[in-house]
């Protein structure tokens, strides 16, 4: 729970002041010295990360490295115990999930969560960027343009034929696609994608990699958390390796794969 954040003992933490702050020229996402402590357990430990506009970034790391917690912090699900989390110049630590989403930060969950009781079409319609207050929702009429956008997304995620089906009866892979589709409908500036290809076939994985590359078209930034190194290689982007809540290494896939520290904690096993 976010409210449970507590003051922490400043043990085993390097002093923040002495370190050069990361440059933030074109930063869309800016994390600096972020720590999250649950009952003495450091899920994130002084993590700093910068994602530039239009950048595609892969984040890898062993289980428990803090990848999902990092996404939670950015999207407002978890409040950091300390540290700076900014979207452009906006402090994200003071906003709730909905406000952050409305700023233009979209998220796809590790375990696909779509709305089972609604149809595929309705799921996308909910995600479509539009005024979100109750009154507007009540008065909402589906315009031709909106219909076209939904149709385009349906085609993109290959679910056109299933538009009228309840999300509950989709397969796991289709749910993954639907969730990616919902992410696209939000038209966000930053997409946080947690393990998008889990449960997908090789062909689907390739398709997804291409899609993500296309999305990060210079305007949108995409952060992908993934286990599948082949997929990360296919993305062909900068890779950040997390370990025990802190950044271990950063660079191209070849660079991090040859980093002895990474080899030791992650790849070597």
């Amino acid at each position, binding site marked *: 729970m976010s409210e449970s954040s507590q003051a922490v003992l400043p043990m085993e933490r390097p002093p923040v002041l002495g370190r050069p702050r990361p440059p933030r020229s074109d930063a869309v996402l800016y994390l600096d010295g972020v720590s999250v402590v649950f009952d003495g357990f450091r899920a994130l430990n002084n993590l700093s990360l910068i994602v530039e506009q239009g950048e595609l970034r892969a984040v890898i790391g062993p289980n428990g490295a803090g990848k999902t917690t990092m996404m939670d912090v950015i*999207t407002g*699900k978890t409040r950091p115990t300390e540290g700076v989390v900014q979207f452009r110049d906006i402090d994200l630590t003071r906003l*709730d*999930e*909905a*406000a952050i*989403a*409305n700023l233009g930060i*979209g*998220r796809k*969950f590790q375990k696909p*969560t779509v*709305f*089972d*009781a*609604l149809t595929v079409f*309705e799921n996308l*319609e*909910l*995600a479509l960027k539009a005024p*979100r*207050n*109750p*009154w507007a*929702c*009540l*008065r*909402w009429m589906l315009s031709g343009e909106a219909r076209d956008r939904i149709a385009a997304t349906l085609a993109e995620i290959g679910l056109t034929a299933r538009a009228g089906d*309840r999300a*509950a009866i989709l397969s796991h892979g289709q749910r993954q696609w639907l969730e990616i589709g*919902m992410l696209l409908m*939000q038209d966000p500036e930053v997409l946080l994608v947690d393990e998008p290809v889990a449960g997908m076939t090789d062909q689907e994985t390739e398709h997804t990699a291409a899609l993500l590359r296309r999305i990060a078209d210079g305007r949108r930034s995409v952060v992908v958390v993934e286990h599948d190194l082949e997929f990360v290689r296919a993305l062909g982007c900068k890779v950040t390796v997390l370990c025990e809540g802190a950044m271990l290494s950063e660079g191209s896939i070849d660079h991090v794969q040859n980093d002895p520290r990474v080899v030791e904690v992650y790849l070597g096993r």
Partner: protein
Amino acid sequence: MSATTLAAAPPAGRARVTLRLVLAGAILLLALLPALNRLPADAALHVSDFTIAVTGKWITYAILALSIDLAWGYAGILSLGHGAFFALGGYAIGMHLMRLIGPRGVYGHPVLPDFMVFLGWPELPWYWWGFQHFPFALLMALFVPGLLALVVGWLAFRSRITGVYLSILTQAMTYALMLAFFRNDMGFGGNNGFTDFKELLGMPLNTGNARAVLFYASLAALLGCLWLCARITASKLGRVLVAIRDAESRIRFLGYDVTQHKLFVFVLSAMMAGLAGALYVPQVGIINPGEFSPGNSIEAVVWVAVGGRGTLAGALLGAFSVNALKTWLTTVAPEFWLFVLGGIFVAVTLFLPRGLVGLLDRRGTGR
């Protein structure tokens, strides 16, 4: 899949059409009742005063059930405090009816209701001002429950109090109100509440005419609420509510302010319950703090569960069927009614999670 989605699917295809036809037929039949009451007493189709009175009461219960269904069946807010909103609406109209008694009370005081004279109150307390005007009283019957729902809902929803915690919170709310209304110095008649009403809108109560008027007013209110609920549930708002019900934390990440949506539907639902109470009191001729008892609220929730939550027809079906059973059973075997009601609670949750409508749906779609 989570069990809550069991109720999600409104009946599809043929079942849906059947349901709508049945519903329309039932409402038409209801509309005929007061006319049949006017037939001579020995006519084959004559409907007794008792039937009119009881059915009129059930219609207000159906409105209450609709309001609960909107909050629970669609938005997943299981309020155990809708009885309180109902009672508050009833009290608002009750205050108007008390003011209309005027000097015809036992003590013959021109302004003060009997209980205030009895307690030796010198004048009308400020919160009774304005209740001599019917439109004001009616407005209050909607406004007061709405305001209470707004305050309680705002406190609860922004703290993300959900599920059973919210249920218990709302139950505590109605319990606290019951205790408060039992007090004489609250100025609402204490234990005895309000009764001995004389007239409403210039027509003496307890006449066939008044019964018919109130009956039709209730029916109109039911249709209005039904239309409103249908409009909401068919809109995108309805889909947002269903999404909140099934995955509240997920929809926040789509940028929906859950607190706002829940508050909207909760307040609206409370106002509907208040309206139901306002129509109920003139028909039964009494309102007392017993209406706030937590058991009443939870019983109303069970009507919805029996009928099938998440479908508007289900709420109506449940309200009418359970109350019909209650009226019948409490006359033939009163000591068994609580066993039966308790049994309904158990049976519907264990065996009929989608209620009677779910049963119909299974037959209709051959599942």
